[in-house]
């Protein structure tokens, strides 16, 4: 009896209301992981270098994950982004190498990605193919087209070292903080504002919540979805250019490795797979989590194969946590435990 009474009230519980703040659960998982790795791999995690390297490598997948958070909020999916990342990277690297373009190459790469996103949006809305399938097809299509265009070659652009565009995009502030992290934080704030404070975000929330309701309240569903996929294409391309400028190379498989980790980050962060709810702050911390697990396990001396295992484990824990915070009864196991406690 007393145990049951102890579990049920959540309304004015300060702990519960703390976890209602967007992203706190994911942030907590992140902090726990950091503490664990400080214990298991003190040499790496007590120094600042490992964090510097996170801040250099996390921004590209984070920027993609921010876009995908919006897509998932609308109840849609985009699997084509690895090919968009690669295509934009190639366009940038090629124009830089062949024509010494810098800002124009950036502009061209972004336009390419935006156009690809726009086409994705048309395929999803006008051909009526569910986005999961449509964008899977588009991943093959864009990826295949890129291999044809690029002959599958690698483009190295070491000459970008020391250029203005490099120091603005991926330079080190005070010799320590990578510029791309500052850009990524700026983009995160922008995307948060877009989702939570802009009419476009509101339309996305209602589209993901219920298409019927969205239609009835006068949201132009197709137009908003096309905008959404276009934005996703733009952000994927931007991520691609950041990656290329940081690594000074384009290679044929660029961006392919992001597919599963980016999707994982979006849902670890608490965004609903069913649409209607998107957690930008959660996505930011979840992107860090995915990177920290990879680096942390290796630094702790665990074999690299275990990385995926632990990402999977953290994935499940995070999603369950996020669901339980929203409504504990949505998790069948917690529900049955609670009802047993009440008896």
């Amino acid at each position: 009896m007393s145990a049951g009474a102890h579990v049920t009230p959540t309304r004015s519980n300060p702990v519960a209301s703390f976890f209602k703040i967007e992203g706190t659960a994911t942030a907590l998982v992140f902090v726990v992981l950091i503490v664990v790795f400080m214990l298991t791999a003190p040499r790496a995690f007590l120094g600042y270098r490992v964090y510097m390297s996170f801040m250099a490598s996390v921004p590209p997948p984070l920027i993609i994950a921010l876009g995908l958070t919006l897509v998932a909020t609308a109840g849609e999916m985009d699997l084509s982004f690895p090919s968009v990342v690669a295509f934009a990277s190639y366009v940038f690297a090629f124009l830089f190498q062949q024509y010494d373009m810098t800002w124009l190459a950036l502009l061209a790469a972004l336009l390419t990605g935006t156009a690809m996103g726009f086409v994705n949006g048309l395929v999803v809305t006008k051909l009526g193919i569910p986005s999961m399938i449509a964008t899977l097809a588009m991943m093959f299509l864009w990826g295949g087209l890129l291999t044809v265009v690029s002959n599958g070659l690698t483009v190295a652009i070491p000459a970008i070292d020391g250029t203005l565009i490099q120091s603005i995009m991926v330079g080190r502030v005070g010799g320590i903080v990578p510029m791309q992290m500052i850009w990524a934080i700026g983009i995160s704030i922008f995307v948060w504002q877009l989702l939570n404070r802009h009419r476009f975000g509101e339309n996305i929330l209602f589209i993901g919540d219920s298409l019927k309701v969205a239609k009835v309240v006068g949201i132009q569903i197709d137009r908003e979805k096309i905008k959404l996929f276009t934005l996703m294409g733009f952000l994927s391309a931007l991520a691609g250019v950041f990656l290329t400028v940081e690594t000074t190379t384009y290679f044929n498989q660029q961006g392919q490795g992001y597919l599963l980790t980016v999707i994982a980050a979006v849902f670890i962060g608490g965004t609903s797979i069913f649409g209607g709810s998107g957690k930008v702050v959660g996505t930011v911390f979840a992107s860090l989590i995915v990177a920290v697990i990879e680096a942390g396990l290796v630094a702790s001396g665990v074999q690299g194969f275990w990385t995926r295992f632990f990402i999977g484990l953290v994935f499940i824990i995070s999603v369950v946590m996020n669901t339980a915070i929203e409504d504990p009864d949505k998790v069948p196991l917690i529900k049955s435990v609670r009802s047993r406690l009440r008896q």
Partner: protein
Amino acid sequence: MTSTPIVRLENVRKQYGKVVSLKNVTLEIGSNEIVGLIGDNGAGKSTLIKVLTGVEQPSSGTIYVRGQKIDAASYSVKEAHKLKIETVYQDSSLGEKQPLWRNFFVGRPLTNRFGFIDVKAEKKIANQIMRSTIGFRGVGIDVDTPVSRLSGGERQGVAIGRAMHFDSDLIVLDEPTVALALKEVNKVLDFIRSIKAGGRSCIYIEHNIHHVHEVCDRLVVLDRGEIALDAPTSSLTYTELTDFLMSLHKPAVAS
């Protein structure tokens, strides 16, 4: 009803593929009247409302709003809102996971010129609507509460409050009392009366004939896509109305 009707449908037909939902409907809604729309499932009530409110375009026929012919191709929910026609659907007017304040303003948020929403202003107005217009005193309910936590009656209240706030001339209620407790049904009926008191018109779609007969000025019966009856409520007693509705089913059985 001497003034021009708010809405006039003329020979409206709507079909989905081979299925004809509306055959040849001509219907007027005058100013400041409550019209009860009755009919079986599949009689075409929902389709009629969708056509009227711009959710679906008619296959043929003409719509007039305040005497002005409407271009069917460009008639949309947004247009209907501009013409002060508002709909409250039984179950699909509100976004379940979204907070109340968003539900009041979705589709026409208060934004600056860059499209960013003035959340403070929206919450303030939403709070006023809840307190005064629909008299919400629900415990633990505020403008940040997601719709999924509201009862059926409270949801109708929110949707109805929204329609009131946007000052519509014609409010369409699609079975607002379905799945409501008796006490909440009475609230909804009171609201329907207040629509009339406020000088507005209302189309009230309902299964419960008793409710319709109680509050409506005029009754329209739809049967298999056609209007079977269009008469002032005063010309029929409740019993006559039910007898008429029962008689509609007889030919179907005979044939």
